[in-house]
């Protein structure tokens, strides 16, 4: 807390946070979007999946402030008469579920492999780091598309819609674990050579316990920074894959799927169906990125 220290040099993470308008604004926007996605079923004015409630008479209504807008549909409706605002809230929910899951899995696996590679060294280290090099040398989008293509070939046609979300999470996590693994490996090597680890070893602690209880807490801050920045990247990757038609199906649309659907009707002048999901996506990614930037500067970890 900063209240005891001099006000010009804020102390502690919270003090720095309160002192930075950039951090506060971006965190507020990100939090607002994440919460509205989490509570979508309660705050959305309509249910975008209840096909029976759609009325074709309501289709392609412009946003409420434009001529011909309807107060029931704040951001207008799509070609089927679906409320755009509700579709965005539910879509953002899907995008964020994929994003958080991909980040959790890649952070977990990457940190674990990084700890092992850094602590054990030897062939395990060599193999893992070569593998990470190969993955890092190819663009995310290409690897994700390949994973998605292979999944389509292997999974039965009828189950593909149901598995789409897991395939997406895997496709994104496969790219992102490498960053955690590399950074954690470097940090672990540094920590392992320090006296407190030697002391723990001499006192006869098991390796697993040293890693989990002594080294891990000391290398968490770069992991947190990478995870925050990667949440934005994961949401972007998900949106891109869904836009390309290999992500979430139309029955369970994410923001990317909504943009894809809107894009198909762009020429009929129905701009609001594509612009609002796109603006939401950019706001979400921008706020998360800005917050991640601030967090990186504030925690100032050595990123490998």
């Amino acid at each position: 807390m900063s209240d005891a220290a001099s006000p010009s040099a804020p102390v502690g993470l919270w003090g720095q946070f309160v002192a930075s308008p950039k951090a506060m604004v971006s965190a507020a926007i990100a939090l607002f979007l994440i919460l509205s996605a989490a509570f979508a079923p309660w705050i959305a004015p309509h249910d975008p999946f209840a096909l029976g409630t759609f009325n074709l008479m309501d289709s392609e209504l412009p946003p409420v402030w434009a001529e011909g807008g309807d107060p029931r549909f704040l951001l207008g409706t799509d070609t089927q008469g679906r409320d755009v605002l509700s579709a965005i809230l539910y879509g953002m929910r899907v995008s964020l579920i994929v994003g958080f899951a991909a980040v959790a899995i890649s952070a977990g696996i990457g940190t674990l492999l990084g700890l092992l590679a850094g602590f054990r060294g030897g062939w395990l280290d060599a193999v893992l780091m070569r593998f990470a090099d190969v993955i890092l040398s190819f663009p995310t989008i290409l690897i994700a598309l390949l994973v998605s293509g292979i999944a389509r070939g292997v999974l039965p046609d009828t189950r593909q819609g149901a598995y789409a979300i897991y395939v997406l999470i895997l496709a994104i996590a496969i790219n992102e674990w490498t960053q955690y693994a590399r950074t954690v490996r470097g940090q672990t090597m540094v920590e392992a050579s320090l006296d407190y680890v030697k002391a723990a070893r001499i006192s006869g602690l098991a390796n697993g316990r040293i890693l989990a209880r002594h080294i891990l807490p000391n290398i968490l801050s770069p992991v947190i920074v990478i995870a925050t920045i990667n949440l934005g990247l994961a949401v972007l990757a998900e949106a891109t894959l869904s836009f390309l038609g290999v992500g979430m199906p139309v029955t369970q649309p994410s923001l990317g799927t909504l943009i894809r659907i809107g894009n198909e009707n762009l020429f009929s002048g129905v701009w609001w169906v594509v612009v609002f999901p796109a603006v939401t996506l950019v706001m979400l990614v921008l706020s998360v990125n800005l917050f991640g930037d601030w967090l990186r500067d504030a925690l100032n970890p050595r990123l490998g």
Partner: protein
Amino acid sequence: MLAFLIRRLGQAFLVVLAVGLLSFLMFRFVGDPVVSMSREDATVAEREELREALGLNDPVPVQFVTFVGRALQGDFGISYRNQRPVADLIAERLPATLELVFAATVLALMIGIPLGVITALKPRGALSNIVQGVSLVGVSTPTFVTGIMLILIFAVTLRWLPSFGRGETVDLGWWSTGLLTASGWRAIFLPALTLALFQMTLIMRLVRAEMIEILQSDYIRFARARGLPERSINYRLALKNALMPVLTITGMQIGGLIAFAIVTESVFQWPGMGLLFIQAVQFVDVPVMAAYLMFVGLVFVALNALVDVTYALVDPRLRVRG
């Protein structure tokens, strides 16, 4: 140097082999090639004949050797979806993608370098602030959103430029180009701009960082002390030296740009390799996916090896660790 060269090329060869193995495994085990290639009403005997003809009854290592041998001769099999040789499909689509990537690179350099110079020379100026703000939003905006917005503004609302296709192309025998017709130029502008934005930010930041560093170096201060005109210092001394790393990195990015073109090509229905690949992923057209993977893998490995070798030629310290 020779030892470095051999080690580096050996490494590149291993990566190519790994990519080849992945392509092969995909080709062999994702879906059943026999089912994908035979007619719906084919009898069991006919299928067995096809299986034998394709060599799918041979031991897997033998199949891999055959696969590599064929790939070296440019034979990647027949596309399941188009029923045409994959090599022909790729050769047909290659010019469109390369022209798009080339146009995007030129555009990115033409816009990125001046912006980088301006933000380096006047870091507190109004223009610099605008550029920094726009680039911040740009980094968080996915390519397909940029593309859609450009279409919405320039094709749907203003009706200035076409939103899909390559326009009229001229067939030069082995290369079909859209750069010789007016409609081709109009068609390439929006997709090239969309693809260029991805690189433009990078180039701008690089130029800016290099310029700022060079402007503080001793020889620039010496040039100032000698009373050389500001203009000459900024452009003839500083910019010239800042451009070398920029050009190298721009070159290295070309592989990424080819892969990144998948998204741009999809937004603008640009008939290049990326569109071919994304359709292959949608329809599980495995031979096309495998061939595209091999092609992009080869481009990447070749560019990376080229850059490493060039750097090692220039800086002997890099030769120690491969």
